[in-house]
């Protein structure tokens, strides 16, 4: 019960902030988009609030942490319960055609998949290596300290792994403990919720572009990739980052198609919030900024000024969202142990370059390994080869460029690793890192294959 209340509060915070912003921008969206987007906005707010409490030495007591969300709840009640018709100002009403047998099968498959994830998650305490060493231990520290303890981001590695890592997930876990008490079995259920919300948000965004059947099919593929749903059963940030960057890029693609400013801002918000999830988000946020600049250069003279103004708004959003964490990261946290600039020498880089065949070998094992990926990467590669003539056309250009830039960023990251040998890093991270690219690649494939789909209809 405590867990459900904790999640509901995340939703309430998000709904308050999202509906306020959308109403201001006169932007309408589906109920599913409001609910799922609100969840991610709410998670970010909880993290921000926890960090502010840290900066001002405020205890994370129940009274303190629910004070502001409770005010938001009252405002929502005041805004919508007395006049529910106000909701219509924000929500899109779509035609509700009867579902076909195929659509029902896809939906049933996804519901079954979700229930299966819950079945796998429900009875087991936190146990996987990184989950325990990093996120769960931090959340336990927060809960038993009753606040973010002094030096929390500077503890030695003997105390907690990677004290400098972005704090969103441990902060959210501590938020749940505030309602459930310390319970490292129940807290794992946040991952299936994140899986569900990311699938729903991705679907809602796809629905703005494709019809229901095609959107459902696309989300079905994502939701049933073994690696994707496996990471919904353990406390790890990789699924969370995948959710943030996939939806952020989809909002950006929507913006490219429509020119609606709030879509660029939502994209910037999600990229900024991703920086609170995992350090690797820097690569995605950087690629977003770069591609926005390219969009300005490629837009015609009539649109260039508006696109430039929108980019400034997006950059401001990204900076404001990322700033509190980066402030703490630079002034209160230890250096990252895996990429230490002091140890990046020519000899070390040369050694990493010599080990590139190791990287490629492990990469091909992932691509052709059905255990983790089903035939996902084979399908994606086939799509790109088959549709190579339109690979760089329209919005495909931006998704493709985004993929290449971010993949190059990850590759450069591998080449700059210094703490251990390249095999160690690639072997322990490549399957997780490839997860970050699944949603984006699938989005590209959805665009590439839509003409064929249309012809079959």
């Amino acid at each position, binding site marked *: 019960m405590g867990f459900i209340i904790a999640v509901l509060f995340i939703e309430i915070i998000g709904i308050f902030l999202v509906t306020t912003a959308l109403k201001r921008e006169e932007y309408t969206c589906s109920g599913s988009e409001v609910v799922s987007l609100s969840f991610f906005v709410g998670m970010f707010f909880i993290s921000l609030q926890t960090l502010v409490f840290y900066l001002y030495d405020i205890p994370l007591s129940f009274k303190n942490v629910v004070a502001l969300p409770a005010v938001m709840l009252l405002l929502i009640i005041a805004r919508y319960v007395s006049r529910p018709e106000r909701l219509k100002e924000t929500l899109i009403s779509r035609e509700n055609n009867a579902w076909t047998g195929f659509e029902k099968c896809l939906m049933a498959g996804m519901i079954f998949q979700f229930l299966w994830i819950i079945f796998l998650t429900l009875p087991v305490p936190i146990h996987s290596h990184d989950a325990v060493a990093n996120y769960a231990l931090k959340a336990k520290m927060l809960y038993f300290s009753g606040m973010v303890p002094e030096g929390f981001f500077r503890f030695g590695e003997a105390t907690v792994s990677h004290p400098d890592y972005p704090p969103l997930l441990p902060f959210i876990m501590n938020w749940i403990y505030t309602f459930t008490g310390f319970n490292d*079995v129940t807290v794992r259920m946040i991952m299936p919720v994140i899986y569900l919300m990311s699938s729903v948000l991705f679907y809602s965004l796809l629905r703005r572009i494709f019809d229901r059947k095609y959107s459902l099919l696309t989300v079905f593929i994502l939701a049933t990739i073994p690696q994707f749903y496996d990471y919904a059963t353990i406390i790890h940030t990789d699924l969370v980052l995948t959710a943030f960057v996939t939806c952020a890029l989809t909002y950006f693609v929507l913006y490219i198609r429509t020119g609606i400013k709030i879509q660029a801002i939502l994209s910037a918000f999600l990229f900024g919030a991703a920086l609170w999830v995992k350090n690797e988000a820097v690569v995605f946020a950087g690629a977003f900024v770069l591609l926005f600049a390219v969009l300005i250069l490629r837009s015609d003279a009539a649109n260039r000024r508006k696109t430039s103004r929108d980019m400034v708004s997006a950059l401001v959003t990204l900076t404001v969202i990322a700033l509190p964490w980066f402030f703490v990261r630079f002034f209160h946290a230890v250096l990252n142990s895996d990429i230490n600039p002091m140890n990046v020498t020519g000899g070390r880089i040369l050694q990493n370059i010599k080990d590139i065949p190791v990287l490629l070998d492990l990469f091909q094992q992932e691509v052709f390994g059905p255990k983790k990926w089903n035939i996902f990467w084979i399908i994606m590669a086939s799509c790109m080869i088959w549709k190579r003539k339109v690979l760089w056309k329209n919005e495909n250009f931006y998704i493709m460029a985004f993929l290449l830039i971010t993949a190059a960023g990850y590759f450069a990251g591998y080449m700059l690793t210094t703490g251990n040998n390249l095999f160690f890093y690639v072997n322990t991270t490549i399957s997780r890192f490839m997860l970050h690219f699944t949603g984006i690649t699938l989005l590209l494939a959805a665009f590439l294959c839509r003409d064929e789909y249309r012809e079959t209809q």
Partner: protein
Amino acid sequence: MVLWLFFMGREDKDDQYRDLFSMYKANYTEKVQSLIGTELYDFLVSCKTSLSEGATYNISGFKEFSIYEVRARYFLWPLRSINQDADYELRFGPDREDIVGYKEYKRHANGSIYERVGL
């Protein structure tokens, strides 16, 4: 689509489903015991009850990068693991040894606790 569905089936790797069902039946203590092993669990409980809150320790007796060491650190919090000059040295395993600057504080069937001299 057919191929996709074909590859969706998952084998029961290392009896994971049997373990999962046993987790459904177990209480919390049994779950933790099953994850970290009864011997380590008993030793850690002994450490937790013997050491004063907020004390620092260094634990050993595991292989490098052992998940059990990580789980032990997690289990023992708010006791804090540090590398050097810890208040206590915790040795998991039956071997006894002399540690410079530490004296034996408590002996357990599955390990020993050493206290820093002058603590």
